[in-house]
């Protein structure tokens, strides 16, 4: 078990760490994008006064980055609200942006790569126009990628604000239309909740928020952020789990939205790795305790590796294999074999570099 996971579960053990342990802990947290969250966790358990000065600086630094991002997110959401309310397009904040704006514990110390929103498919073209008029531009991708996103994906190609540099993902559903699971976005929108004081700005209802977080983690998660996403789920389940009727709603919604499998995996790995309190009958009903079968053993072999901080201190001989299998699995789930073959064939023949905000920034810096 990685030291980072041990400390996230038992923050009171931090005071017994020696300098060498802290060294490993900070590096694991940095690689898992969890420095800010670790800081907030230690803070809420009253452990910060016992933290040595040097590691404390790194934690504080991670937390300052998260605070800054939260400020940006709130500002951007205010601007999106203005943009969309002018043309009466309702939009739903997803993932991190929702946690921050709704003030959920899952926002604590969380860092972001982008803002994710969902708009009704029928309004997608209007939403894109409205965004372009306010300075959001589609990020430099080639014609193939543009078409690939628009034809097969559940989101527009990522947009970036031309002056502020913020990145925005506009979804119309939560999984690619070509995936084997087909949750109906109309159900998500119908059950969504308007944020008080911000008419038109909505977040998913608690059960759907958990299901989306699980779906994202087990379908599209990038290895570097999987543990962060798992801690999101842990925070969400701890917070909403205390509300009346939540667990019942969660399993009902999972069935309705065809998201039983991601929920099963979410419950299995949050309870196993982070000791998330989940009622036994819920685990039973979701099939989260199922241990038999080759498929489950393979999933465990993959996820118990990729859900560790992706740092050399936690890697074993099979970690690179697990990451490769995860990549194959996520593509396999995303599209039927003939599409996958065409897509991979194109990428092999024309290996265009994908534009990412980080890469664009790096190139500007040189």
């Amino acid at each position, binding site marked *: 078990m990685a030291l980072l996971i041990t400390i996230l579960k038992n923050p009171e053990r931090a005071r017994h760490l*020696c*300098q*060498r342990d*802290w*060294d490993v802990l*900070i*590096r694991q947290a*940095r*690689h898992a994008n969890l420095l800010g969250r670790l800081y907030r966790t230690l803070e809420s358990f009253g452990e910060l006064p016992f933290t*040595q000065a*040097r*590691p404390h*600086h*790194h934690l*504080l*630094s*991670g937390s*300052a*980055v998260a*605070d*800054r991002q939260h*400020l940006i997110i709130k500002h951007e959401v205010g601007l999106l609200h203005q943009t969309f309310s002018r043309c009466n397009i309702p939009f739903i904040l997803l993932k991190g942006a929702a946690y921050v704006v709704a003030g959920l514990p899952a926002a604590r110390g969380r860092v972001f790569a982008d803002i994710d929103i969902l708009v009704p498919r029928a309004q997608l073209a209007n939403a894109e126009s409205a965004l372009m008029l306010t300075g959001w531009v589609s990020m430099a991708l080639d014609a193939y990628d543009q078409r690939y996103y628009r034809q097969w994906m559940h989101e527009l190609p990522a947009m970036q604000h031309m002056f502020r540099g913020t990145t925005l993902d506009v979804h119309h559903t939560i999984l690619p239309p070509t995936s084997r699971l087909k949750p109906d976005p109309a159900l998500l929108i119908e059950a969504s909740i308007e944020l008080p004081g911000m008419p038109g700005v909505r977040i998913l209802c608690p059960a759907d928020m958990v299901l989306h977080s699980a779906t994202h983690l087990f379908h599209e998660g990038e290895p570097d952020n999987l543990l962060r996403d798992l801690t999101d789920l842990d925070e969400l389940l701890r917070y909403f789990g205390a509300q009346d009727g939540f667990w019942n709603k969660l399993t009902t919604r999972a069935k309705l939205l065809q998201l039983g499998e991601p929920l099963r995996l979410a419950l299995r790995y949050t309870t196993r790795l982070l000791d998330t309190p989940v009622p036994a009958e819920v685990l039973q009903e979701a099939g989260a305790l199922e241990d038999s079968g080759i498929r489950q053993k393979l999933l465990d072999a993959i996820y118990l590796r990729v859900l560790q901080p992706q*740092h*050399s201190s936690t890697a074993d001989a099979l970690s690179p294999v697990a990451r490769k299998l995860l990549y194959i699995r996520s593509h396999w789930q995303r599209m039927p074999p003939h599409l996958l073959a065409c897509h991979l064939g194109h990428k092999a023949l024309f290996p265009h570099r994908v534009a990412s905000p980080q890469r664009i920034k*790096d190139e500007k810096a*040189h």
Partner: protein
Amino acid sequence: MIVSNLTLSELQSRLLGEGLTIASGPFNFRLQSGFSDIVPDLARLYAHHPLITDDAFIDFHVAIEAGRGLRRWLGAQARFVVDGVEPFTPLPQAQALPMIEWGLNWCISAYSQHVLVLHAAAVARGNRALIMPAPPGSGKSTLCAALVNRGWRLLSDELTIIRLDTGEISGLARPVNLKNASINVIRHFAPEAFLTKPVRDTVKGTVALMAPSAQSVRDVGQAAQPYWVVLPHYRAGASTALVPMQTGAAFLQIAENAMNYHVLGIRGFDAVGQLVDRCRHFNFEYSDLEEAIAQFDLFAPEG
């Protein structure tokens, strides 16, 4: 124990093995490298830096490694790696040494949001510090190198670290990065200083590193209170002129040169505000280095 207590072969075997672990002011770093030709220069540049024990916390685990795969046979490359992350594209192997300095600067600016990080040189007399925030080409590194060869203590040549709690400067005392014409200027100005062989064709032109003085490294932990802020501007043929600057203008200059001003938000604003309040501010134009140093020595009796 300090780096110069090691023989060159001991130093090299550390670099090849578990790494050379050095304290540079508030930061500990571990350096690994398979390049043997950087060893002698590295030994001179970091001669006086303390070695840290194996059980200590390390802020930055860095390595300079050879290019990967086939690439290593087509023009040898150097890659800067910090704990498995590679922030830069590889450079020609001849640039390995300056790349270490640029890499460490990257680590500090990317991972240190617990302090205000200024793109500025800083030197001190006693416990009073002089900060020179300025864009490249202003002659700040040249001035900084000249001052530390005339009795000022080097705090930092590139990044000035301001603590948010006390407002004091945490010195780094790392090598000074000299560029282009300033390399020969400093060679003539201070023949006794150790400069590495110039490395040509870098993104910053020709670069040489100057070793910090033993005293600067030894006293790096001593408190340094910001006292003067000077915005240098080198102009060929200009006569030396030190002109007081309004605090408003000084605030903007400092904020503009603060690498993490925007990340720190209100704490950044407060930190810059306090720095402005406690310092005296000047614009400084010069072309003659001796005259420039004489001008700064007028500060010294105050210091």
